[in-house]
């Protein structure tokens, strides 16, 4: 899911750049023409949010289905924004809530995005893996969410845009009982709740 959304974002980005470069280079107003119907197998319903895959750019500038990237993010429903995973999760070590350099990097990116979209409000969910107890994890998840929140506030994000909630180990992202599943489940997870 994560990789697919990332590909989607990349696709939008490439299309936007292609459009911008094409427009600038030729100094002509872009020609708007209807997109060809994507030829899909009859039985497969077209997934609505997936942007048209980029086609090799030759002489014709490709017109994206939506106007431009900025407008498109602001006009998307919250669920779709969250599905695209624009805000990066932050991962933690076992029993810990310290922010690693990777975690700080992810938060730096999230902060930049939050500054760009100054109306967004988000909930930071704290999650834990199954190797801690259910009760203590309810508190540990809160501590993880607060660690992420505190860091974002230190980067200048207004505290009242950032809500925290702990789900302890109640909602694992990966239910498997493996190291890689546990690593995925120890996280601060970001959900856009208003824009």
């Amino acid at each position: 899911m994560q990789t697919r959304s990332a590909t989607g974002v990349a696709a939008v980005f490439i299309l936007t750049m292609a459009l911008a470069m094409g427009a600038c280079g030729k100094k002509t107003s872009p020609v708007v023409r209807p997109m060809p119907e994507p030829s899909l197998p009859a039985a497969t319903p077209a997934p609505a949010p997936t942007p048209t895959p980029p086609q090799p750019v030759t002489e014709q500038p490709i017109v994206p289905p939506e106007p431009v990237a900025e407008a498109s993010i602001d006009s998307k429903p919250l669920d779709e924004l969250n599905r695209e995973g624009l805000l990066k999760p932050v991962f933690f070590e076992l029993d810990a809530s310290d922010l690693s350099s990777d975690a700080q990097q992810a938060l730096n990116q999230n902060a930049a995005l939050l500054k760009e979209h100054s109306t967004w409000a988000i909930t930071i969910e704290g999650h834990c893996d199954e190797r801690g107890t259910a009760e203590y994890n309810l508190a540990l998840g809160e501590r993880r969410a607060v660690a992420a929140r505190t860091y974002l506030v230190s980067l200048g994000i207004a505290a009242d845009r950032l809500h925290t909630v702990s789900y302890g180990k109640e909602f694992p992202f990966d239910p498997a009982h493996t190291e890689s599943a546990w690593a995925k489940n120890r996280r601060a997870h970001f959900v856009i709740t208003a824009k």
Partner: protein
Amino acid sequence: MARPTLIVPALLLAGWATIAPGVPQQQQQQPPAPQQVPEVSFTIRGGPGTAPHFAVPDFLALTSDAETVAAAKTMGQVLWDDLQFEREFDMIPRDVYASIPVARSVTDVPFDRWRELGADGVVIGTVQRVGTGMRVEMRLYDVQSRRAALSKQYDQGASPGAPVNPRLFAHTIADEIFQQQRNLRGVARTKIAFDSNRDAERVGGTIEQRQAKEIYICDYDGANQRRITVSRTLSITPDWSPDGRAIAYTSYARGFPDIFISFIYQGILQRPTQGKGQSFLPAYSPDGKQIAFTSNRDGNDEIYVMNADGSNVRRLTHNPAIDVSPTWSPTGLQIAFVSDRSGAPQIFTMSADGTDQRPLTHESYCDRPTWSPAPYNEIAYASRTSPGGFDIKIVNLDNMQISQVTFGQGSNESPAYAPNGRHLVFMSTRGGGRQQLYSVGRDGRDLRQLTKVGANFMPNWSQ
């Protein structure tokens, strides 16, 4: 094992009876009303140094309708299980005496056959339909003297939405036998609350596939599992009020953890913390007047106590560490809780006003203390015994000796005491990875699996 009587059966029954009228939402079982039959009360003894051998044959159905016949069979089996549970009597397996003819009445008993079998005591019961209800008569006989040590008659009327429950007759009889023969408070009529994802309902408002957890209750033996919340989100960590009428729990219904109280027989929902910060893990005080809980309302997870109606909130802990999982001592004068102020989570104790905080455990990782009822003076808890696994342990507060109840089969968490202190219920991943509830003696013996459907968590035993 014998100890002073805490609650006499008559009082218990009176308590039940007052709950019975007006039960719109839940089907509160109306208990059988006992009627005294003349009896000579005495204790049935086994051989020197051995527990008495008891037998419980099928009850005799005096009316031949299918419900009565089925009820008679159920009562014999359930009563045998109930009496086995406390391990006070040596229960003779029921298939051993399947060939002994059922008594034709409570006074016509083939004592010679029971004597041959080695039974010291035998429970003979009859069941008959009376109107829409049921009448059960029982005798606990001393096989040697052929005298009844206990004689009771119970009547239960059926009402709309509350059919006659044969198991409740058996549970009532079992508790009376424990009381009369052992001066022991049985737990056959107690219940267990827990949370479960068994209905696999998806939580709304999120793009992830998240399964809701709802609060359920069941009898002490796992029978009669019923759902009591409809939240479509997380409803977890249930805690019974001492009078058994309400369950306090942690609800995410507003998008964050908050404490709700469900009066399960009246269908009333209260929200004492009113969304002030985030609050979770409620624990009723022994007198039911106060609730201890964890909240981040002042910026960090601390232990608080409030009156059960939400008034008079007092903060008990003050430090930047996590303080969580409160449990009351049976006197209500102390609270044990978990704190990671010294590094890993450990159990601490304090006075109920927050003074005199001191560490109790010094292990790798401890959580979910649960203070035993008297006469035991001990705290059960979950202790990390392997990298990803916990076991249930008990620390004796008189001599600080630690005993272990489970031994590395799956991960074992969230212990809760039975109201007589002789048993624990806990959740475990033994047997396949998904959490299920088990009851076990405080000595680690007599493990019983209580749940099988879905995954089940955070049990709490009613008083």
